[in-house]
């Protein structure tokens, strides 16, 4: 019930992001969602892509520091308060979110939230048990 996410260490220098995305483009990798968080000196680029294993190999081959992590993708109604309710639910079960980012689906009315928590199984159980739909890896590209 989880999706593989790429985390890539990128220095805060001009052209670095362009290089990473260029490597992925040349490898025929499609990017579904992304997030960048940065400090003064460096940032971490997180990506959900069409072929995470291949993308990881491509980037490692180009001397990048990369990590594959399992994250949860939750489908929400694209409406006011949906995210707040979902987060309140996780919070009420003592699950803290390390980070999250989101994208809007091509299907009208759907939003997808990528969340990173310590215990994926527990989080998925709670979400599923409360009527949320958790996206499977093979589904992520049909969205």
């Amino acid at each position: 019930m989880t999706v593989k996410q790429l985390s890539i260490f990128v220095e805060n220098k001009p052209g670095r992001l362009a290089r990473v995305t260029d490597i992925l483009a040349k490898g025929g990798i499609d990017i579904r969602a992304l997030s960048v968080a940065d400090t003064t000196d460096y940032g971490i680029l997180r990506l959900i892509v069409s072929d995470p294993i291949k993308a990881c190999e491509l980037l490692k081959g180009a001397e990048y520091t990369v990590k594959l992590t399992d994250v949860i993708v939750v489908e929400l109604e694209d409406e006011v308060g949906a995210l707040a309710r979902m987060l309140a639910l996780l919070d009420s079960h003592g699950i803290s979110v390390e980070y999250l980012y989101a994208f809007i689906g091509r299907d009208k009315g759907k939003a997808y939230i990528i969340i990173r928590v310590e215990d994926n199984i527990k989080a998925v159980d709670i979400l599923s048990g409360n009527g949320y739909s958790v996206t499977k890896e093979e589904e992520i590209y049909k969205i």
Partner: protein
Amino acid sequence: MYWQKDIETMKRSDLERLQLERLRYIVDYCYNNVPFYHERLKKAGVTADKIKTLKDIEYIPYTTKDDIRENYPFNMFAVPMRKVARVHASSGTTGKPTVVGYTKNDLDMWADTVARICVAAGATEDDIAQISFGYGLFTGALGLHYGLEKLGACVVPVSSGNTQKQIMLMRDFGTTLLISTPSYALYLGEVIKEMGIDDLKLRVGLFGGEGCSKDIREQIEKTLGLFATDNYGMSEIIGPGVSGECQQRCGLHINEDHFLPEIIDSETGQVKERGECGELVVTTLTKEAFPVLRYRTRDITKLDYDTCKCGRTLVRMAKVMGRSDDMLIIKGVNVFPSQIESALEGVSHIGPHYQLVVRRVNARDTLEVKVELVDGELLEKFSELEQLANMIRNRLHSILGLDAKVTLVEPKSLERFEGKAKRVLDLRGENPKSEC
């Protein structure tokens, strides 16, 4: 003005006779009291009898910093510990410092040599001397402290840091002498200028611990309104007091009756002709606890034996022009790239390559250490990456005694070198190269 006029202005022929006599004595003394020298001298077939002229010093093998480190902590001492009144230490390249010792007589002699350079620079017993070197194992602060006390000046042992307080005391006490590194003096000057203070009584600056370019000296003199002089020393010889500038400022007078200098070719080890430029080698002629024979300082300079306009006959060494090794001086602290290596050794998640970037920001030296993050284990949390950088920073601090900025960079982004690595980027732009 002199502190010990008879010695400072001694006829060179008399001085050289005194040096020869003392050299013969110290060779004998080392042979009999320091196992390390006993072995070395025996192997080289050198006894005091073989030293018939000063030139015969060339028979004696060199002593290096490695020799001292290998004999950590007290194995090169020539007296039992009960005769040792104090120890000092300087930074070592592998985490272990090089340790030196002093008998009561050594401390007394040391204070005299320091008093000499202070008087030569213009200090008197009427002065109020603020010592802004860090007190501790380093020889700088306590060396100047006891020399100035012996001279009769009033010593203010304020130590390093806390610039606002330094300035307040300087003002309130009417400080006339400033003892610090040139870069700290430069920084003090800028702060004082910013604060708009113009009623300081500073008169003379005694600067050491690192080199000082002409530009920096001029800037210090302008902002602090004092007469700036350089002095030189290193703990392995004694600390400050080895040499210092007189008011003519045409070289640093070496206290040659105690410290016999030579200039050698650092590659071949051959002694150079008088006046030529090369590595300074020093033999201590009178030290009891920690005598050194032909210690290789790694500092590049040259010697001028002509009598100075100030009347001193003591040889003058030029300002240090560079190093024959890769040592850096950052905030007055000696830093060897190998120390950084040992700090990084065994740290996981990073690669073996590193780069040191030294900058001068607002007149203060800063050190940045760049290391490559080679595995992705820590990419889930920024806090873990920060912890890694902090851990490296703490290790560097415990080995160097310096605060460094640690920057994580991408793998293979630091330049690779074939052969001798140039891992240092010194952007201070004033480190003179050793062009002899």
